[in-house]
Every structure is written in structure tokens, then in C-alpha cells.
């Protein structure tokens, strides 16, 4: 109470006098010249200092106040302006604890003496520290017969929902310490902490007294009760104290913990409501991007930097232009969907799946080229392409979770050359969690989603992070990892898996409403999570907007890598295509391109059928006829070496034919064809000589 009494005098001082007082050591002597005369007069008048001759010292009764206020000045833990460069950093809390608590006190607080330095800021800076206190008081109130009725009035039902689970019980030392505190004081302390939590900003001590008096309605009892409650709150590091810019004492909660606790309370109380999105996207972007890359590799293999998987910027721009644009609201969420990252991911994923490989010399002519496996994959139906990738990712036991990252080259495997981790690897995870297989928990988390209605993503993920983290058990072994750290790590895995796998594979329909993400599981999603034996594509994998014009040009009104891949097999790319435009007049049907396709196995029905399927407008009749004509004009001929004997006349030719035997063939009146050989066989030559025919061998122009 002495602090409260001194505070009244403090409030009456002007600002300069306050700062002058704070410069005085609590138990030292100071020369009167060290203070401005006005400040000295003020302080002496208020009884805060004693002035004897030229010596000035802090009045003995106010020394504790002086000591506390100076500590509150040195560790202005609630004043964001004091350290604007490091707001809310845990080191500030650490400094505060050092200022206000002795080492012994800190060791007692954290129950693990060896962790007093590092562990206490972790513990006291966690929302769990406050929430455990709340739950402890509630239990005390319920247990105490006399407190039951009072408690019913004291606590707001809406905040009753605890956000900690069974594994977050108070440790024994802390519980014993609180057991020694009178329940009434604890209830007042509860009120103080809860009120500060609701306010979400510090109070001046003076305001706190005013508010408390208003609550209890008894001016005689109020200050004492609040002082006792405040004492417990400060000693238990539930409430922190510091001074503000006007040297007024302030109290408040550690901002990060308060924010985390309030957020979790809201999440815990708020069920994940179904909503209607204003825009929705559900596409297997990962598959489409790989397909786009494969088109590039088929049409104009991109040049790669010596490192292997990084394209030269020109090639990357060309690929980026070919990727189906995503709505900007996806990119704004920092979910890794920049064009650059998509290009990079497509290269790595397609390589790991064995669809592409590198050819050429690094640093010279290294290019990414299509493999036979890639060609086969592209020939599959859209559903089969997606199914293949899902199977490779989710059904391959090697792919479940590879903390060391994707394997891009693992040796001669039957299916591709590498392994992609089904759970995308995140570097934002504490080391101990690497040993946890997160896949079962991930699958369980997203199975709690809905395939019927859209749910808000953020509350859903936070609830999963709070309630179902597979990392929680690990936390108890590593007390230096805070509860928030655990949750943040799991949340990060949930988010990464959501965007880089579920969204990327079209397993969820992602919607947006007022900048909030919403989601719903698709048929693909139910299959991916093992809830259905098969899937149907909710919507066409790719909406093709391609027009075949009568002048044989093929115009893409929207990027469509799948269509491009098919068309590139029988049409010539235009300059627009080569310049990497995903839209525009990208291909032209030419006699050469169509006949080349014919040589590659295309027949008229397949080619014209493909054009009809791809074109959103009716295929012009002249195009169909022209293409068929070009295809029908394709003929095959065989070339083989032969040895010709030119006889001077028909009679000689007949004699040659007779001498050479049945393998010889008369191909004109005077020319006989013999089986291919470098020269006329000696046996034949001998027979010819016997028949009176002498052969002069003529050398080919190139000397052969």
C-alpha cells in the first residue's frame, strides 16, 4: 500500500520533477546541484526526497517506490515506442524479468532451476501461462463451497472455454505457490488479468484503481484488494509493469501472449461457419504447370543454367507466359504461387517424376527435354494424368514425408527417377518435429473439412493447430519450445500441405470472400484423403478456349497447356508461341507440320478429331478438307543399297542375269540389279567371265 500512497504524491509532480527523481539512486546521496532548483523544490515539497544542506537523498519510505519505478523505467516492456525496432521481442521480457526478479525468484517461478534464464521467458511469454492460471482459479472456485456462488457471478461464461488441453496442466511448484494465496485475492487477480486481456492495452495504475473501485463499489476496501491482487499478478508474472513516456506507472499483459490467448479464445468459441465464396477455383495447378513445362520441352527445350533446375530467364518467361493465370487473391496470400516459383516447382516436380531430364553439357548447352515417360504421361486423359501424380505422391510409401527434401535422382527406378515428399518440406519447423510423421494427423485434420459446404480456412486451420497437433507431445520434452512455437510449426505444416498439395492437386475448391479464404473438399480431395475409392473431376481440368480459323491459324483465347501439347504435335508454332505468349495465334497448320504428324502416326480421323475437340467454334470445312488432303498425300518409300550392272545392250544384260543367278533382277533392258555389296562377288565375277562378260567396276563419286 505504500506504493499506492506514494503514487498519489507522484501524480502531483510535474514531468521534469518525475524524471529528476528517477535519476536519483534510491539509497545514495546526491548533490543538490544535480537537480534543477524547481524540481528539487517540488520533490522536497512532496516529501519524496530529503534535502539536508547540499545533500539530497530519496526519502526512506519512498525508496522501494524509487527502486520499483527505476526498474520499470529500465525495462519498459509495455511501451512499444521504447523499442520500436524490436516490438514484442522475447528478449525484452527477459530483460524485464532480470530487472524485477532475483535469480532465485526466477528459478522458483519456472520450477526448473537450470532453465531460469532461457526457459522462464518462454513460459511466462506464452498465452498458456495465463490460461493455466485462469483454469487453476476456476477449479479453486468450483472446489470452494463458499466460492461457488461468487464464482458464478465472477466469471463471464463466454470466456469459460479453456483453450489448453490436458497436457497443459500447471506444474506442481506453481500450483503449490498459488495454493498459498487466498482465494479472494486470486479472484481479484483473475478479474485484473481478464480485464487487461479484454482491454488488449495497458492501463495506468491510477486508471486500474478507478476501474476496480467502480467494480467493487467500496472505496475503503478497494485499493487494498487491488494492491494485493496486483502484487500476486506481478509476482506470478501474469501482469507486467513499466512506466510510460510521462513516467506514469502502467500495467498490462505481455502483448504476444495476450494476443495469442484472445485469438484462441475467439477461435475456440467460434465454430467454423459455412460461407458462400464470391469466387472459387479448383484446378490441379501442379499437374497443369508440369504439362505446360512438358509442352515447352517438346516444342523448344528450355535452356537450363549449369545448376540444373533453374531456367535462363528468357525460357522461364516463356514458360511463365504459358502457365494458367491464377486469380490475384491467391498470390496475395503469400502461398508460393508466384510465376517464378511455379516454374521452378514444375521443373523439379516433373524431373522427380521422371517426365523430363537434362541433356547437354552444363554451362554450355544444357537443356530440359521430354522423356518417354513424360510423353506417355501427356498422352493420358486429364483424369489419368492427375491420378498418376496422386498415386506417385500419396501411395508411394517413400513419399510420405521426407524431411530431408525431395529426391530428384534416386537411381534407375521403374517409375521415374526421384521421389517427391507428399508432405511438402518446410524449413520453418523446430528440429525435434522432424522425427514426427505428420501425415496421419494431416489426413485426419483435413478429413474434418467438408465436401458439402465452404468453410473459412483461417479458423479451421487454427482450430486444427490448437487441438490436434502431433507435435504437442514433443513439446513436453523440450520446454524451451513454447506452446506458440509448437502451434506455429504445426500450423505451418497444415498451411503448406493445404496450398502445395491439396490446392495444387485440385483436392480442394478454394474460394474467397472479403479477402478470407474458404475451402471445400472436392471429389479429388476425398480420394486423396482416402475417403473414396475413386474420383471424378468436378469441372474440366482445363477450360480450353481455342479457335481454329479458316486461314489455318490456331488462336488461344486463354492459356491451355494441355491443348498446346496436343496441337504442337501437328501444327507449327508461330513467333507468338516462340516468344512465350500463352495466348494469341500460337500455331498454324501447315503442310509440313501435318505431314510430319502423319509420319509420326497421326491419321486423318485422329487429327481432325483432335481439332474438332479442341476448337470452341465449329471447325471450318476447308480446314478439315485441307488437313485430310495433306495427310492423304503422305506416302512411304523405302531406300536400300543396290549393286547395278549396266550392260551395253540387252543381249549382254541377259547373259549377266543368267550368270548372276536367281537373286539378280533385270530392271531395264540393259541394267541388272545384284544384291547389295561393295563389289561384284568374285563367284559371280568368275561366272560372268566364263560367260564372256568382263566387268569394269565404277567407283561412286564419293569414293565408295
Amino acid at each position, binding site marked *: 500500500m505504500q506504493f499506492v500512497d506514494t503514487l498519489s504524491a507522484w501524480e502531483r509532480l510535474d514531468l521534469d520533477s518525475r524524471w529528476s527523481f528517477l535519476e536519483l539512486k534510491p539509497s545514495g546521496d546526491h548533490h543538490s546541484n544535480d537537480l534543477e532548483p524547481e524540481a528539487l523544490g517540488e520533490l522536497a515539497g512532496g516529501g519524496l526526497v530529503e534535502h539536508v544542506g547540499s545533500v539530497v537523498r530519496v526519502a526512506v519510505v519512498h525508496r522501494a517506490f524509487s527502486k520499483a519505478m527505476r526498474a520499470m523505467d529500465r525495462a519498459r516492456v509495455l511501451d512499444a515506442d521504447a523499442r520500436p525496432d524490436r516490438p514484442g521481442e522475447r528478449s525484452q521480457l527477459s530483460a524485464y524479468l532480470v530487472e524485477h526478479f532475483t535469480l532465485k525468484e526466477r528459478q522458483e517461478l519456472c520450477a526448473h532451476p537450470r532453465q531460469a534464464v532461457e526457459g522462464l521467458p518462454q513460459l511466462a511469454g506464452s498465452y498458456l501461462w495465463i490460461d493455466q492460471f485462469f483454469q487453476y482459479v476456476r477449479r479453486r472456485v468450483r472446489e470452494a463451497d463458499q466460492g461457488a456462488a461468487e464464482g458464478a457471478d465472477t466469471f463471464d461464461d463466454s470466456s469459460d472455454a479453456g483453450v489448453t488441453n490436458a497436457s497443459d496442466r500447471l506444474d506442481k511448484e506453481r500450483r503449490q505457490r498459488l495454493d498459498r494465496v487466498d482465494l479472494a485475492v486470486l479472484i481479484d487477480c483473475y478479474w485484473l488479468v481478464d480485464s487487461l486481456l479484454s482491454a488488449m492495452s495497458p492501463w495506468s495504475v491510477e486508471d486500474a484503481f478507478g476501474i476496480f473501485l467502480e467494480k467493487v463499489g467500496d472505496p475503503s476496501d478497494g485499493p487494498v484488494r487491488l494492491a494485493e491482487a496486483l502484487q500476486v499478478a506481478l509476482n506470478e508474472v501474469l501482469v507486467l509493469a513499466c512506466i510510460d513516456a510521462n513516467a506514469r506507472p502502467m500495467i498490462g499483459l505481455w502483448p504476444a501472449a495476450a494476443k495469442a490467448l484472445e485469438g484462441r479464445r475467439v477461435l475456440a468459441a467460434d465454430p467454423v461457419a459455412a460461407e458462400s465464396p464470391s*469466387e472459387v477455383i479448383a484446378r490441379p495447378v501442379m499437374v497443369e504447370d508440369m504439362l505446360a513445362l512438358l509442352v515447352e520441352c517438346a516444342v523448344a527445350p528450355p535452356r537450363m543454367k549449369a545448376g540444373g533446375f533453374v531456367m535462363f530467364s528468357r525460357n522461364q518467361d516463356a514458360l511463365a507466359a504459358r502457365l*494458367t*493465370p*491464377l*486469380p*490475384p487473391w491467391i498470390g496475395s496470400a503469400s502461398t508460393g504461387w508466384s510465376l517464378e516459383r511455379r516454374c521452378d516447382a514444375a521443373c523439379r516436380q516433373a524431373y522427380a517424376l521422371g517426365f523430363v531430364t537434362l541433356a547437354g553439357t552444363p554451362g554450355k548447352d544444357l537443356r530440359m527435354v521430354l522423356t518417354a515417360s513424360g510423353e506417355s504421361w501427356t498422352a493420358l486423359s486429364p483424369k489419368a494424368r492427375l491420378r498418376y501424380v496422386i498415386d506417385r505422391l500419396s501411395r508411394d510409401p517413400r513419399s510420405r514425408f521426407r524431411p530431408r527434401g525431395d529426391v530428384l535422382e534416386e537411381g534407375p527406378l521403374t517409375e521415374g527417377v526421384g521421389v517427391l515428399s507428399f508432405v511438402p518440406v518446410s524449413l520453418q519447423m523446430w528440429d525435434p518435429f522432424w522425427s514426427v510423421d505428420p501425415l496421419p494427423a494431416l489426413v485426419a485434420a483435413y478429413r474434418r473439412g467438408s465436401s458439402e459446404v465452404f468453410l473459412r480456412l483461417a479458423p479451421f486451420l487454427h482450430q486444427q493447430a490448437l487441438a490436434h497437433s502431433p507435435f504437442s507431445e514433443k513439446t513436453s520434452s523440450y520446454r524451451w519450445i513454447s506452446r506458440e512455437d509448437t502451434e506455429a510449426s504445426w500450423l505451418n505444416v497444415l498451411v503448406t500441405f493445404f496450398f502445395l498439395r491439396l490446392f495444387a492437386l485440385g483436392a480442394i475448391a478454394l474460394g474467397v470472400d472479403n479477402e478470407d479464404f474458404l475451402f471445400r473438399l472436392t471429389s479429388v480431395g476425398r480420394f486423396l484423403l482416402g475417403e473414396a475409392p475413386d474420383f471424378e473431376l468436378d469441372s474440366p481440368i482445363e477450360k480450353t*478456349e481455342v*479457335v481454329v*480459323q*479458316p*486461314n*489455318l*491459324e490456331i*488462336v488461344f*483465347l*486463354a492459356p491451355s497447356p494441355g491443348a498446346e501439347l496436343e496441337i504442337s504435335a501437328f501444327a507449327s508454332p508461330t*513467333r*507468338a508461341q516462340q*516468344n512465350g*505468349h500463352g*495466348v*494469341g*495465334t500460337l500455331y498454324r497448320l501447315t*503442310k509440313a507440320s501435318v505431314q510430319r504428324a502423319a509420319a509420326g502416326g497421326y491419321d486423318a480421323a485422329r487429327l481432325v478429331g483432335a481439332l474438332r475437340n479442341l476448337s470452341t*467454334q465449329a471447325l*471450318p*470445312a*476447308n480446314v478439315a*478438307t*485441307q488437313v485430310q*488432303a495433306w495427310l492423304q*498425300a503422305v*506416302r512411304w518409300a523405302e531406300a536400300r543399297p543396290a549393286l547395278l550392272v549396266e550392260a551395253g545392250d540387252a543381249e549382254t544384260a541377259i547373259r549377266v542375269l543368267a550368270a548372276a543367278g536367281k537373286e539378280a533382277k533385270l530392271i531395264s533392258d540393259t541394267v541388272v540389279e545384284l544384291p547389295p555389296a561393295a563389289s561384284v562377288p568374285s563367284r559371280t565375277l568368275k561366272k560372268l567371265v566364263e560367260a564372256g562378260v568382263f566387268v569394269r567396276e565404277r567407283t561412286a563419286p564419293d569414293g565408295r
Partner: protein
Amino acid sequence: MTDPNATAKPLIVQGADTVLLEVMSPAFGEARARLMAFAELVKAPQHVHTYRVTALSVWNARASGVSLEEMLETLHRYSRYPVPESFEKEIRTHASRYGRLRLVRRDDALTLESSDPDTLAEAAVDRDVQKWLGPRRDPLHYHIDPERRGLLKLALLKAGFPPTDEAGYSDGDRLAFEFREQTLAGGAFELRDYQREAAAGFADPRFAAGGSGVVVLPCGAGKTIVGLACMHALQTTTLVLCTSVTAAKQWIAEALDKTTLEPDEVGLYHGPGRELRPVTVATYQMLTYRRSRDEPMLNLEVFDRANWGLIVYDEVHLLPAPVFQVTAALQARRRLGLTATLVREDGKEDEVFALIGPKKVDVPWRELEEQGWIATAVCSEIRVPLPVWQRLDYARAPKRQRFRIASENIQKIPLVRALVEAHPGQPVLIMAMYLEQVKELGSALGLPFLTGDSSQAKRDELFAALEAGELAGLVVSKIGNFSVDLPEVSVAIQVSGTFGSRQEEAQRLGRILRPKRDRRQASFYSLVSSGTVEEDFALNRHRFLCEQGYEYRISYAEPGSAAGAVANEWAGRSQTETQTGAEPLEPAPSL
């Protein structure tokens, strides 16, 4: 994707200078109207039209009063995808260069001036520009010889400094006349909307470029009437230049029939009795005539022999080089270019725009067809096999000779006969390239023929007979390609052509596009030897029409099939309806 209405937006910016316009989009009409103000229509096939934004198109737009902001706003508003920064930057650069230099009259002298001495100095460094500059008055002004006005403009344009030409035009001598509401022939007459708009746009005095320009309209859409409307808007003495005497006579006939001009006010500058009248019609051939290669073209003086207020270049895409040069010196006179196909195989379209003026109107053919101003046309290509005996000759012939062999394929003759018979009562124009072939066709089909050697009187007589339906058909050489007005002829058969000339193909189709009195459709047949180089050339020839929105039906005269059956199939009739000569064709070649 970003905008829920994005797919309804019709523009796609492709590459450095190309913009695609989707026809099916609901915003097609308004987007096209705004895009045309600063972009050149390159092609307009059925579904997606292609425009090009060039330095010249941007400068022409600026000359017509279109601001840079309007151009960019159009692109941003109608583009389905974000407009590439480089594309926008290019337009900004082009637009910023416009009007830095001005051609003006100061103290009765022609002057090139700029408010920025650096720009003027930079332009003057260019060698081609230097040639046409006069003495320098001060750092901001150069004297210019009025005769060099056009050449200087062309050089400045090529150097990237398009000047605004504010020097004005000579008004010429006044010539008052009106359009008749009833023609001399007795029919009602009224300008069509697009003709009126074209003339109004041409003569718009608000802009520096007003008074000169090119009007691109399909054959049969009444370009002569547009020319007369421009003359009417200016009410001034006019020199009209045409491709042939036939065309010149048609011009005169139209002028007398549709306007109040009297016969003594309109004259043909041709032959010994060449006349200079307030409206004088001459031919390019006449202007460029000279006795020998070393002698001057004396007839070019016609440009200076009268105070012309307007010079009309009919079929401006055929403007011969000497006339190009004279035109460059005629910048003080208003110039009007008329064409259906501004496709120059020499690639000098830009020079036409630079010397005659910017494109004022360009209407896709199919659009006027839909409005009923030109006849609906069905274009068909029938592929005919070479006879067996000719195939080896063909295979062994040099490349150029192969084309001729394919063009003169004799198996085309029975098919032509069958096609003529399949259109009873409809006069047929049969066009071929080689004189021998023309004569052979005439002889084999029993039809008269016209070549370059035919007298004008004979030409007039036979064209009139064909038009009147007195002839079943007429075989013509290249003389029938241009400016032959045969409104009632609805069937044309192209037996051979000038290699891959797109312009010729379009002009030949144009002969039958004038709307018919009974609204019947026009049929254009192109006979091509299958499996030969003629097929490849034909593909190129069709390109212009495909790019105007026409579709080609392609079919084969199958081996052993009767020519008549093929013809009937293509004439849209069943074999039972007509009994035609059934001459079997030899099997298709497999070369």
C-alpha cells in the same frame, strides 16, 4: 481470370504490335470501333480478327485527334489480360513522337518547324531527310520546297519523326454539283450509310489529315460512289486515275448517271482526243506511257495542267512507281485512294498511307455481305487430277514450268463446261492466266474470249452481252481482274491465276460481288490441279479471302467421277435435276 467479366472482354494483346479481337464477344462492336481508331486491321477471319498497332497507325490516330489516353484506355478496358508494359510503352513512345515537327506555311513559304531545336536537329541528321530539306532559317525552322513536301514527309516518317502537315491544301477550281435522287437510268438513288460516313470522314476539316486518305471497301460495295461523294463534299475539280479504259468509262457513266454533272464537265483523258474537263478520268497506263524507255512520260503533265482540288486514285494498291513519285510532289492537293485489297505484293502498303494519306475506312467484306450491300458468295476449290500422260512431264519439269503444267491441266476443261451447264441462265465469267489457255477454253466451250489484245470496243460489247445474259459465259485473261463492273454476273470460274496472288483472288471474286436484283448468291469456283504446286499457291491465294471471313469449300474431282456430277455437287444441285455431259476424269495423280 482476375476479372469475372474477363472472358467477355474481346481483346488479347499478343506480342509487340498485335492485338486480337474476338468476334463472338458481346463487346466486339464497341471494342472494334475504338480499336480501329489507332490500329490497322490485318485480317478478319470468322472468329478472331487481327489488328496491328504500328508507329504509323498511332501517328494516324493522333492526326485524327485520338489521344494517347484514349488508345490506352481502350486497351485496358477491353483487354482480357493485362496489357504488357512493353506494348504500352511502345505506344507511348510512338505517340510522343507525333507532332514534334510541323509543316506549316509562314509568309507564303512552306516551313518545317519545331519548338524543340534538339528534335529538329536529330531529324535533320537523317540522310534521307536531309535530301529534302531547304535552307535553315534559324534553329527552329527549315524552308521546304513545296514540290518536296511529300518526299520530306515520307522521309521524316521513316526516320520516326512524323510531322503534322498543317500547310493546308489547294482548294482547286470550284465545281458545283449534286447527287440525283433518281438516276438517269430511272432508279432511285441514295448514298448508303457507310458511303456517307466514308465521305464525311475523308473530308473532315477538323484534323490535319482531313482531306487525304484511303478508303478500303470490298469489290461491289460502291467505291466509285464513295469517290463521287468525296468529290461532292469538296465541290472541286477532280482528276480520277483508273486501271483501265473500261474502268474509266464506268467512272464517267456513274458520274453522269448519279450526279448532276453534265457530259461536258466529265471527260476521258485517253487516245488522240484526250480531254481536260472539270472532272477528268485517266488511266495509270496512259499517264505512264512513253514511246521508249529513254523518253519522258509526257502525260504526267496532266497533274499540273489544271488546278485540281482532288485527285482520286482508283485501285490504289496498283499505283505504279512513277505515279508514286508524282504523287509525292502533289501534297498540296487532296488525295483519295480507293481499294478493295490493300495488299501490295511489294509490301509498300505503308508508303501508300504515307503518300496518299491514312486509312479512313476499312470494312470487312463479310460485314457488308451480312448487311446485304454485297452478294453472298460461296467460294469453292475443286481439285482436278492431272491426266496420267502429263504426270511424268510434270515430275520432270523445272519448278516454274510445273506451275504452268498444273495451271493448264486439260482436265479442267470438262469441269468448266459442266460448271457452266450447272448454272443455266446465269452468265459465267471464266478467268485464266495464260493466253493459250484462254483461247483453248473459248474454243472448247464455244464461248467468246477477251485478252489484252482485244479492242476496247470488243471488250465493251462482250461485257455488255454477258451482263445482259446474252452470253452463257465469257472467257477472260487478266484484263478481267479489275474494275470490270458486271452487276448481274454471279458465277466466276478461276481456271488459273498468277501464282499465289491474294490480291488477284480477291479482285476476281469481287467481279461477282455486286448484289443481284434477284438476291441470288454468287458462286466462285477455283480449279486447282491436285497434288501439284498449284495447290500450295492456291492456299496462299485463298488467304486474303479467308482473312476477310470467307470459308473455302474444298473438294476433289475423284478419279472416274463424272465432271458433271462434281459440278452439280458444287452447284448445290442433285444429279437428277440436270443432265450434263458426263466426261469421266482420269484418276488423281500420286506425285
